[in-house]
Each structure stands twice: as structure tokens, then as C-alpha cells.
């Protein structure tokens, strides 16, 4: 049940939305898609789901193309949220679940489980338009997972939610993963991907700029972050060989360095200058990688 994209591209007239994208998404894993607006994430998802035909390349899941015959195995949370505003939550979810091939009574059981889990059981008989935006989003999420999909595609699942609801939704996504679903999701928020995904892909203008497992990506990136808080001026370090970037902070300085060796020599250099409150070498954050690869124009 591996989801495979081979040399997939999509052109709209002159505009190339996705350009030669090849990915392998292993079964029962969580895969993160990162990219600025217009990077081609949604177009990729739509092609995976078969809503758009690709201009070239092949998308297969377990060796088969995804089409309407497998729609009962696939769940989708679109970026643009949308439900029938005039329909009751219950009718809505049951209808959407039945369209995905789940019988009515099973859909109801699932719905009640999810409403309880999200602590909103009282909304079962409310119209969607009466709910707050955050709660609508939970209903939207339920609509995507109610039929127990094996492949779940979540387009920006956490955008527009408060931190408590983000946590609640994250836990739900993790449960689904433990239950054996393969999950692909996109986000603007680096830390969501960093926390949750084993594999990820950073897209930029339709091209994958970084692709692989999180650990490998970080190792390959090579650069590390060095945080120094000290009682004496640290400005001289900006020019120190091996320092790629320096950002002054309130209490000291944040340096991006080429490797551990640089940190060692910096420590030797400054250890006699005075009291050092903090000297920490950290793994680069996904944010650093993203900015490096995509450019400073974003975030």
C-alpha cells in the first residue's frame, strides 16, 4: 500500500503548477508537505485524488491508480473548508459517509465516537451554519475520517484553529496513524511537520527542493545552530570563519555554523573573555532548512 508519485507534473496552459515530482510515501506513515502558498501542494493532492489529471507522470497506490473505485479507502480534508450550511451535522456526515460507501448505522456510530472525542456531542442535531468556525472545522475533519480511510489526505488541517484545538486534532491524527492509516498532510507551520512526520517534502514553485526522512534531511543539511548568552560583546563572532549567519538576540547571539568543529573553536576563543551563561549547540530547525532552501521571502 505504498503511495508512489513518479515524475508527476501539471501544467495549466503556460503555467506549470507541479514540475517533475517524484515521491514515495510508505504505508502507515505520516508524510508532510511543506511549501509557500502556490507551491503546488493542493494541486498535487488533487492529482493524487484523481480530481485533476496529471499532465505527465504516474500516481499509483499499491500499484493501482486512485480513482472512484477506491474512494471508500480515501479520506480528504480540503484546504477550502466546505459543508452544507443548511444541513444538520448528523445528516451531513451520514450522507458524506454513505457516498464513501459506509452504511448509515456504522457512520452514526463513528460520528458519535468522534463528536465525543472532540467534546462536542451536543452538535449532532445542529446545522453547520450555527457552529463556530473552529467547530465547523472539527466537523469537516470528521467528514474526512468517518469512513475509516486507509489513505488520508489533509490539506492544511491545523490552520485557523486555537492551540487547544490544534492539540486535540493532532492527537486524533496520531490515533489514526496508529490504527494503520497512511497520512499525507500539508502545512505552513514547520513545527507541526517537525513534530509529526517521519518523511517530508518541501515544495517550491512546483518542484521538490528537499525530500526524504526528517533525520536525514537534518543531517544532510549539516549546519547547526549555536546559541551563546554571555556577559561580554559577541559581535566579533559574526566574522568568525565557519559562521554562516549571525542573528543578535536579547541576551546574546544566535549563530548558524557549518559544523561541530566550528563550535569547538568558538568556545576556545571566547572562554577566557568572561562569564558564559549559555552555550548550546542545536540541530537545525526545519524552519532554518526551509528558509535556506526556499528563500527569505517566506515567514
Amino acid at each position, binding site marked *: 500500500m505504498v503511495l508512489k508519485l513518479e515524475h508527476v507534473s501539471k*501544467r*495549466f*496552459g503556460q503555467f506549470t503548477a507541479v514540475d517533475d515530482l517524484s515521491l514515495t510515501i510508505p504505508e502507515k506513515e505520516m508524510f508532510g508537505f511543506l511549501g509557500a502558498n502556490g507551491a503546488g501542494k493542493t494541486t498535487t493532492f*488533487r492529482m493524487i*485524488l*484523481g*480530481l*485533476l*489529471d*496529471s*499532465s505527465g507522470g504516474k500516481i499509483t497506490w499499491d500499484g493501482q491508480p486512485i480513482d*472512484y473505485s477506491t*474512494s471508500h479507502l*480515501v479520506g*480528504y480534508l*480540503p484546504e*477550502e*473548508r*466546505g*459543508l*452544507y*450550511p443548511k*444541513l444538520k451535522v448528523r445528516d451531513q456526515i451520514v*450522507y*458524506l459517509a*454513505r*457516498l*464513501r*460507501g459506509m452504511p448509515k448505522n456504522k457512520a452514526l456510530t463513528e460520528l458519535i465516537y468522534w463528536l465525543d472525542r472532540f467534546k462536542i456531542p451536543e452538535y449532532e442535531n445542529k446545522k453547520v451554519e450555527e457552529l463556530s468556525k473552529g467547530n465547523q472545522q472539527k466537523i469537516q475533519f470528521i*467528514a*474526512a475520517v468517518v469512513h475509516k480511510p486507509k489513505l488520508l489526505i489533509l490539506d492544511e488541517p491545523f490552520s485557523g484553529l486555537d492551540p487547544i484545538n490544534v492539540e486535540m486534532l493532532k492527537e486524533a491524527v496520531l490515533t489514526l496513524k496508529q490504527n494503520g492509516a497512511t497520512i499525507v498532510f500539508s502545512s505552513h507551520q514547520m513545527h507541526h511537520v517537525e513534530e509529526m512526520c517521519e518523511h517530508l517534502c518541501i515544495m517550491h514553485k512546483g518542484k521538490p527542493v528537499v525530500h526524504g526522512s526528517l533525520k536525514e534531511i537534518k543531517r544532510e543539511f549539516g549546519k547547526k545552530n549555536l546559541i551563546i548568552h554571555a556577559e561580554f560583546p559577541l559581535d566579533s563572532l559574526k566574522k568568525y570563519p565557519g559562521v554562516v549567519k549571525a542573528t543578535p538576540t536579547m541576551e546574546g547571539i544566535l549563530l548558524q555554523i557549518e559544523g561541530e568543529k566550528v563550535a569547538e573553536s568558538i568556545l576556545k576563543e571566547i572562554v577566557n573573555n568572561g562569564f558564559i551563561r549559555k552555550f548550546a549547540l542545536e540541530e537545525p530547525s526545519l524552519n532554518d532548512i526551509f528558509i535556506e532552501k526556499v528563500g527569505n521571502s517566506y515567514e
Partner: protein
Amino acid sequence: MNSFWIILFHTYLNKLKSKSFIITTVITVLIVLALTNINNIIGLFDKNGGKENVAVLDETGELYEPFKQQLKTINKDIKLTLYKGSEKEAEKAVEKGDFKGVIQLQFNAEKLPEATFKAMSIADSSLFTDLQTSLQQVKTMLTASKINLAPAQLQKLYEPVSFEKFALEKNAKTEEELNQARGLVYVLLFIIYFAVIMYANMIAMEVATEKSSRVMEILISSVSPIKQMFAKILGIGLLSLTQLAAFLIVGYYSLTKNMETLKDGFFGVYGFKDIPLETIVYAVIFFILGYFLYATLAAFLGSLVSRIEDVQQMITPMTLMVVAGFMIAMFGLGKPDAPFITATSYIPFFTPMIMFLRVGMLTIPAWEAFLGIAILIATIIVLAIFGARVYRGGVLMYGKSNSFKDIKKALQLTKNE
């Protein structure tokens, strides 16, 4: 259950339960009831059991009786009363409401009758006309007797000329049949016209609502857009049949109950008693085909807009086409064999109404009707294939989209280059 049927019944039941549908149905049923009971309703508002009281001031003493006799032959519902008082008193009585009006009869210099009619208002022209006609006849009789014309001679003078029409074509419809057909075709044309406009609108709105609420993207990831489109068209089609069935059952029941009182009016002229089965069958066929033609068109037009406000603008050209077809059909009622009507009956967007008009009014060879049906079916298939492709791309298109250029854009979206 297959997802096609799930969508079909979801669309059908949801619309059936909606307030707007129930209200329109109830109002229309009431209108149908009112129309078929029109005579009873008019009677209800008339005092004196529908009779109108008119006071007669006969200064001559001779005119009252013949006048009364004549009036009886024209309108039994006008009741004349010989008034004994003075003119002033009579006017007072009218003001009090005892009489609808007062008519003053007298002779002129040539000893021929003349009259003055006074009423609170002279808006009721039919009463006035009836009185005048009666008096006119009294005058004719008096004049005739003056020049010694016997009543038999007088009758000869006024006898209408015998004038009969015959159509030489074999199986041509007789005058009576034509009138009957005209009435039936008229009513059915109206039904087709309203149904097509109303339900096509409903479909376009339905699609646009799903699109604007963005639920569309989940739907098309579950079920193919083409399946959805046809499930929706059939669902609304089922709804239209339900609604029409309600109207027809109420209408038919009420009509048969009131046939006696309605015989003299519109329904008498355009006899509804023996409706030819053939006409009904053609009506059903053309109704269904017309519905599918415009429903398919409406569905793909609806898929192009992303806001509900734009729906009307998008489907206006379609609505105008229906109106044009209806206008031509109305013209054709009086002249169904005009070459213009024959030509337009083969234009698919007009065929449902105009070919039906020809079938109902004329005796055209069966192949002509079948050719019309075949053209319609072919057009529907072409529209469905084309529409389905536009629909598939259209539902993914968002933004300011309300022009026909978007059709091209929508087609591009579905194309794999």
C-alpha cells in the same frame, strides 16, 4: 446502495422537505383550486345570489313588459323591478343600496324608446351593455311593427348566414377538435414553460450552492462529477414529477367536480372532456425531453459560477431561450401551419414546445414528430457529454467567474495535455 441513488434521493428528499418547496406547492395548489372553482367564488361575493337589482321608472307604461321579456333572453341574473315612486326617490334607493341602478324609460319624439341609466358608478359595463342591448331589441321590434313587418320577417332579417368550414386534408382536425386541441396545448405549453424555467433554475442553484459552500470538493473526491450531475438532474426531475402530479390530481379532481358550472366558460369552448391520448403521450415525452435538455444546460452553467449571486446572470441567456420558444409557440397557437413554426420546431431548444404545438394542433406525419424527438435526444446527449466535461472542470474553478469564457477554462482543466 449505489452512490448514484444516494445522491438522487438525497437531492430529492432534501428539496421535498424544504420550506420553499412546500410553500410553492401549497400556493400553486390553492391557485389551481381557485381557478377551477372560479364560478363558485364569484358567486360567493355576489349578494342576492348573484342577481342584480335594477329599478325601472317607466314613464310610458308600455315599455316595462317587453323590456323585461327581452332582458330575460340575454341575462337571467338581472332582476328588474317596476318602481312606482318619483325619480328622486328612486335615486335615493340606489344610494341606499336597494338597487344597483335605476333605468328611466321614455319615448322620444318619434315614439321610439330611449333611456337614462343611473347608478352609483358606471364601472360595471356588462350590466350596462345588457340593458342597452335589450332596449335596442325592444326598439327594433317597435320599429318593425311600425313599418308592418311581421315577427317572422324580422327573424329572417336577423338570421345568421350559414357558414361552415371544411378541411380537405385527410384526418384534418375539425373546428371543434382544433378548439379543443388549442385549449389543451395552451395549458400544456404553460406547464412545460414554467416547469423548465423553475426546475432548471433549481438545478443551477443547487450546483452553485454546493460550489459556493465548497462542499463540492469533498463530493467530487467521493463520487465522479458526471455521476453527481446526472443524479442531481434526475433527483430534481423526480421532484418536478411529484409536484406536477400533485397539481394534476388536485386540478383534475376539482375540475370534474365543477365541470357543470364551468361548461359555459373557457372550458366549454376549449373542451377538455375527451382529451386524445396521443396528445397526452406527446406532452409527456416533450415535457421530459425538454426538462432534460434545459436541466443539463443549467447544471453545467451552474457549475461555472462560484457565487450564488452570479447564477441568475449565468442562466439568463438560457431563460431567454425558453421565453423565446414560448412566445413563438403562443404565436403558433393561432397559425400552427406557418412555415416559420415548422422551421423553428426543428431547432432543439424550441422543439419541446413548438413540435408539441404542431403535434397537438395539426395532423403532421409521425416521422416529423419522431425527427423532432430524435433531434432533441441527440442534442441532449451532446449537451450531456459536453456539459459533463465542463462540469468536471467548472466545479474546481473558483474566483470571479461569470462569463462564458470560463467554459473554455473549465474544459482546459479537465484536459490532460
